[in-house]
C-alpha cells in the first residue's frame, strides 16, 4: 500500500536519515524500532507531512505522491496518533473526534447528529463510553482509543501509533493491542513505534529497525524475537573517541539512599559513587534519569530519600545547599536550563560563582573577564571574545560553556545530563578528556546518557533505570549493550499497581 524509496533527510549538517527504504502492505502491522535518535520520528514525520524529505520518493498504491502538510497526509489516509495526545480536555468525546468537521445546522453545531455519528465509531472499537462524555473524565487509555477513533473517522488506511502504550496501564495496553489486531483484520495498515519489545513480539507481522538514520535490518514472522531485535538496534564497534580511563578509586563521595522524585514518587533509588569514579546512568527516555539528577541537585523537590557527600547529609530540594557541598549539575537542555542565551559568555560563566568575582556585592568586571578568557582557552571554546552573546555560539561551544561553568569550580560530585547530545565528534572528544581529567582529580561523576557507545566507553560502572526505579548496576566486566537494554526495558516487578 505504502512504499518509501531512498528517503534521506538532513537538518543542516546532521544527517537524520540516509537512503531508507520502507514499505507496508494493506492489513499489515509493522513494528518500527530503534534507539533514541535513530531516525524513527523523522521518518514518521515525513509521512505525516511535518518534514519533507531531502531526497527520495513516496508511493501510495504505486503512485508517486508528495506530502506537504498534515492535511495532505490526512487526504491520503495517513493518520498519526501521537505520544502526546492531541485532544482537547474541555470538549466531549464526539466533539473531539469530529473537531473542525462538525455537522452544522443554521451555523451552529448539530449536537445530536454529532453524537449519532460518533456512536458507531466508538462501538467499532469496543469502547463503552457515551459520545457526550467529557474528555477530561476519561483515563489515558480511553483517551488513546478516542484518538484512534478520530483517526478512523477520517477513513484512515494507515495508522501510525507513536509509543501508544507509554502512559497506559497493563490492562489498557492489552485492550489496545487487541484493537490493533482487530484493525488489521479490517485491512488497515499499522506502523507501531515502541520501546517495549514485548508488545512488538505480540502484534507485529514484521519488524524494521533503524540505527543512526539507516536501515539496520528487518525481521519477519517467527524471526521476531527480543534478542534479535536488540542486536539489530545496537551492535556496532566503539570508535576511538574515548580516552584511556583507568579508575583510581577513593572513598565513597556521593551516597544516595532510597531517593525518589516528584515524577516517580514510588521510586526508590540507592547508589554510591566513589572519588574518581564515573558512574554511567542508562535508561530509555522517560525512565526518570533527568528527574533524578534534578532532584539530587535540588532544583526539583524530592518526596523521600537521603543523600550525603563525604558523610555530610544534604537537605533535599535545596540547590544552594547542593552547591555549597560541591554537588553540581550540567543540565540536559542547555538552552532552557544551562545558559541565559541573551547574556554574554562571561556573564554566563560567572553566574553561578558571583561571590568569587565580586566584593561586597559589587562586580569586578575585569577580574570576571580575564578569568573567563582563561577558562575559554582551557576548554577550547571557540568564540571571538568573552563579551560574545552565548546564544550565537555553536551547539558544541555552548555545551562547553555549560560544562566549564561548573567544572572550573572544583566539584566533589559532578552530574552530567546528556553531556554530548547533538555535538560533533571533535567537541565530544574534548569533553570526554575534560571528564576523565576531572575524575583523576578525585571528583565523583554521574553521567546520564542515552548514547550506548558513550556509556560503554566512559563509565566505570553503569546503573540502569526504568520507570523511576534503578533496575540494576553493571560492573565493567558485565558491560554489554544487551545487558543494558535488558535492564532498561525491564518493568520493575515491585511497583504497586
Amino acid at each position, binding site marked *: 500500500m505504502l512504499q518509501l524509496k531512498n528517503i534521506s533527510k538532513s537538518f543542516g549538517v546532521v544527517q537524520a536519515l540516509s537512503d531508507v527504504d520502507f514499505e507496508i502492505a494493506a492489513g499489515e502491522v509493522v513494528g518500527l524500532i530503534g534507539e533514541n535518535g535513530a531516525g524513527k520520528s523523522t521518518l514518521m514525520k515525513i509521512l505525516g507531512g511535518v518534514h519533507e524529505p531531502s531526497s527520495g520518493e513516496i508511493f501510495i498504491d504505486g503512485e508517486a505522491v508528495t506530502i506537504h502538510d498534515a492535511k495532505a497526509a490526512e487526504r491520503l489516509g495517513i493518520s498519526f496518533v501521537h505520544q502526546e495526545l492531541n485532544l482537547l480536555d474541555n470538549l466531549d468525546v464526539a466533539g473531539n473526534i469530529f473537531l473542525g468537521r462538525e455537522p452544522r445546522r443554521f451555523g451552529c453545531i448539530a449536537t445530536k447528529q454529532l453524537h449519532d455519528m460518533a456512536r458507531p465509531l466508538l462501538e467499532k472499537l469496543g469502547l463503552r463510553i457515551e459520545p457526550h462524555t467529557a474528555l477530561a473524565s476519561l483515563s489515558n487509555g480511553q483517551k488513546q482509543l478516542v484518538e484512534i477513533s478520530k483517526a478512523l473517522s477520517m477513513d484512515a488506511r494507515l495508522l501510525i501509533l507513536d509509543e501508544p502504550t507509554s502512559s497506559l496501564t497493563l490492562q489498557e495496553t492489552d485492550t489496545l493491542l487487541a484493537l490493533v489486531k482487530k484493525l488489521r483484520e479490517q485491512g488497515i495498515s499499522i506502523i507501531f513505534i515502541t520501546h517495549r519489545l514485548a508488545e512488538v513480539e505480540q502484534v507485529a507481522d514484521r519488524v524494521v529497525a533503524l540505527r543512526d538514520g539507516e536501515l539496520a535490518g528487518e525481521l519477519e514472522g517467527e524471526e521476531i524475537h527480543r534478542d534479535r531485535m536488540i542486536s539489530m538496534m545496537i551492535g556496532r564497534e566503539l570508535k576511538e573517541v574515548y580516552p584511556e580511563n583507568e579508575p583510581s578509586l577513593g572513598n565513597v563521595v556521593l551516597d544516595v539512599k532510597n531517593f525518589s522524585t516528584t515524577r516517580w514518587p514510588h521510586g526508590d533509588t540507592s547508589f554510591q559513587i566513589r572519588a574518581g569514579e564515573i558512574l554511567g546512568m542508562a535508561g530509555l527516555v522517560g525512565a526518570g534519569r533527568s528527574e533524578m539528577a534534578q532532584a539530587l*541537585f535540588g*532544583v526539583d523537590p524530592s518526596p523521600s530519600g537521603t543523600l550525603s557527600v563525604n558523610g555530610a547529609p544534604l537537605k533535599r530540594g535545596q*540547590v*544552594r545547599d547542593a*552547591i555549597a557541598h560541591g554537588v553540581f*549539575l550540567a*543540565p540536559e537542555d542547555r538552552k*532552557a*536550563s*544551562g*545558559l*541565559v*542565551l*541573551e*547574556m554574554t559568555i562571561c*556573564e554566563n560563566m560567572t*553566574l*553561578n560563582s*558571583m*561571590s568569587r568575582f*565580586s566584593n561586597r*556585592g*559589587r*562586580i569586578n568586571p575585569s577580574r570576571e573577564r580575564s578569568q573567563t578568557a582563561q577558562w575559554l582557552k582551557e576548554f577550547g571554546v571557540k568564540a571571538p571574545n568573552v563579551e560574545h552573546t552565548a546564544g550565537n555560539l555553536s551547539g558544541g561551544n555552548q555545551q562547553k560553556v555549560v560544562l566549564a*561553568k561548573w567544572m572550573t569550580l572544583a566539584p566533589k560530585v559532578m552530574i552530567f545530563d546528556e553531556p554530548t547530545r547533538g555535538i560533533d565528534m571533535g567537541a565530544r572528544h574534548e569533553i570526554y578528556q575534560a571528564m576523565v581529567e576531572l575524575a583523576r582529580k578525585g571528583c565523583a561523576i554521574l553521567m546520564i546518557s542515552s548514547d550506548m557507545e558513550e556509556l560503554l566507553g566512559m563509565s566505570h560502572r553503569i546503573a540502569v533505570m526504568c520507570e523511576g526505579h534503578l533496575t540494576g548496576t553493571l560492573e565493567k566486566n558485565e558491560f554489554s549493550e544487551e545487558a543494558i537494554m535488558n535492564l532498561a526495558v525491564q518493568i520493575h516487578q515491585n511497583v504497586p499497581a
Partner: protein
Amino acid sequence: MTDTATNFLSQLLSRYRKESCLAIVLLFVAFWTIFFSRDTEANGFIQSLIDSRFLSARNLENLARQIGMYGIFTLGMGLVIITGGIDLSVGSLMALFGSIFFYSLTGAHGWIPAMPWSVAIVALMLVAVVIGAFHGWLVAKIRLPAFVVTLCGLLGYRGLAQTITHDTSIGYFDSKFSVAGLESLLTGKLFGLPAAFIAFLLFSALMDYVLHLSVFGRYLLALGRNEQAARYSGINTVLVMAFAYVACTVLAAVAALFFCLYTSDVVPSMHGNFFELYAIAGAVLGGCSLRGGEGTVVGMIIGTTVLLILQNMVNLLGYDSSFGKVITAIVILGAALVDRFEIWKLVYRRGS
C-alpha cells in the same frame, strides 16, 4: 585625547543604541515645543527661541519636578518589568499612601495616631515594604501571575483609600507637629533644582549601580531572561524577584510623598489615577521589554522625560488635552514598532 573621547563615545553609543535612538525623539519633541512656543516679539530668531515659554525658568522648574516625581516610580516599575512582571497597583498605592501619610500627620483618623513627619515617613516606608513583600510573595513564591496580583491591588488599594477617608479629600494643614521641615525637604529646591528632581537623580544613580554593577542586578537580569537557567545556577530566584516588588512599592511610596505635598491634598478617588500606566509607558518607551531581562536606567530616564515633555508641549501649545493623549499614544506605539523591527540597529550599525 580626541581618540579616547571618540572611543568612549562609540562605546557609549553601542551600549545605549536603543536609548540614543530615543534621545533623538526627545530632542525632536523638545525642539518642536521650543519652536512653537517661541517669543514672537523677541529680537531675532535665536533670541525668540531662548525666550520661548518652554525654556522659561518657571516652566523648566515645573517640568523638572514632574520628571522627578514620575521618574521615581517609573524606576521601580522598570525593575519589576525587568523580572518579566508588571505592577498595576502603583497609582492606587499613591492614593493609599497619600491618605495614610496625611492622617499620620494630622492624627485625624481614629486608629492612626498623630506623629512627627520624620516618624510618619519611616512608618509609611514600613507599610510599603510590607505591601511590596506581600506582592513579591504571591508572585515569586506562590507563583500567581503578576498581572492578577497587582490588578487586585489596583482595585483594592484605591477602594481601601476611599473607604478609610470616607471618600473625601484630606489635607495636612492641621497637623499636630511642625511640618516646615517636611515642606522644605519635599517641595524645596537645591542648587535651583526641585527636590523631587534631585531625589530622582539620586535614585537613578543608585539603580544604575544596582542594575549594571552589582551582583543583585546581574541576577535580576538573568532571571528576567531565563528564570530556569538562573535557578540552575543556584540563584535564589524567589528572593530576587520578590525584592523587585518591594523596591517598586517603596519607590511608589517615595513618589507618593512628593506627589501628595505637591497637590497638598489627596482626593482618594482621583489621586494617582493611571500612574501605573504612565510608569509602564515610560519604562517601555525607555527600552524595557515586557518579556523581561532587558532595560537600562538611562532608558527609563529618557522615556519618562519624553512622556512629560509631550504633556508639557500639549499644555504650552494649547493643544486639546484629549488630543494630547492621542499624540502620546502614537509616540509610544512608534517606539514599540522601532523596537520590534530593531530599527535602531540600522541607524547605528556603522557606529558599533
